């Protein structure tokens, strides 16, 4: 979902660079509280994993593919603030080292995938936290749903940005329909990858799953 330069006009690109910078700055401040000797290495590995999995485009329709965005995955494993930073680092490395995602478009790309995607994934996961605490099936379901929603809402970010200042003047309804349709399919892939990843981590190191943190005791007592 990395847009190239030129799809949005210059003022909108700059505006989203500012928005992204503010969001990432806020995340940097808030992330501190969620990072310690144990979770800091985990956060680095989550960013690394998201980079790796983003390389794997999976087919969704003849002639179209999708890849993980990673917002919900990061939010569930390391929390929303650290998670937003994980996805941001991935996007910056992709843009600078691999020419994937434009430079003036970086603000919009960070806004969509790192900020909107992670925040949405986290809000959904948090709302369904009780289900996630009910064991592996519940956690898998919560991971799937929050990842699906994160994909569709992040795609909506592009639709909104294009409506504000997109190049070419294509009818926004047409853009929205394509984006939503394709990303509903990609969201299924995102959901499956997120569910498998999160439940795998939870089965080995449940203490490293942010969403489950502080729930150990009530879970054992079955209150």
């Amino acid at each position: 979902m990395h847009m190239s330069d030129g799809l949005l006009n210059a003022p909108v690109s700059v505006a989203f660079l500012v928005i992204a910078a503010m969001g990432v700055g806020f995340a940097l401040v808030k992330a501190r509280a969620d990072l310690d000797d144990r979770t800091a290495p985990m956060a680095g590995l989550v960013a690394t994993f998201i980079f790796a999995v983003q390389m794997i485009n999976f087919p969704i329709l003849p002639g179209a593919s999708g890849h993980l965005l990673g917002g919900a995955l990061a939010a569930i494993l390391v929390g929303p603030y650290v998670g937003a930073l994980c996805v941001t680092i991935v996007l910056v490395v992709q843009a600078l080292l691999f020419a994937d995602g434009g430079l003036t478009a970086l603000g919009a790309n960070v806004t969509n995938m790192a900020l909107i995607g992670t925040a949405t994934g986290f809000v959904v996961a948090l709302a369904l936290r009780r289900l996630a605490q009910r064991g592996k099936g519940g956690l898998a379901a919560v991971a799937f749903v929050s990842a699906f929603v994160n994909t569709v809402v992040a795609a909506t970010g592009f639709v909104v940005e294009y409506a504000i200042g997109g190049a070419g003047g294509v009818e926004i309804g047409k853009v929205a329909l394509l984006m939503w349709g394709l990303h509903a399919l990609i969201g299924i892939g995102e959901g499956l990858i997120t569910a498998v990843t999160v439940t795998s981590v939870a089965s080995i190191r449940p203490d490293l799953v942010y969403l489950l943190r502080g729930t150990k005791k009530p879970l054992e007592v079955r209150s």
Partner: protein
Amino acid sequence: MKKFFIGFAFVSLLIAGVLSYFASGDPDGLDKTVEDTGIAEHAQEHPFAGSAFADYALGGDDKFTGLAGVLGVIVVLAVSFSLFWFLRKRSPQTDLAD
């Protein structure tokens, strides 16, 4: 303790270094949208399009996608680990902080 972290890093290396060869080459959802609507005509070439590892290759050669992936894994791990390690709470009584 450390085994999990090493395993997690190894999985990422395997995905970026090996599984990446099996990735679909078709446009992703956003690319497909801008191509089908003609918006893509306005796309500008990436300023670094000619750089060594552009498009997860080496000098434009797809044979080296795995190598580019491994490099990316190392760079992302180095950057993110450094940042998060620097940002972490350094108080010795971390067990009380929860």
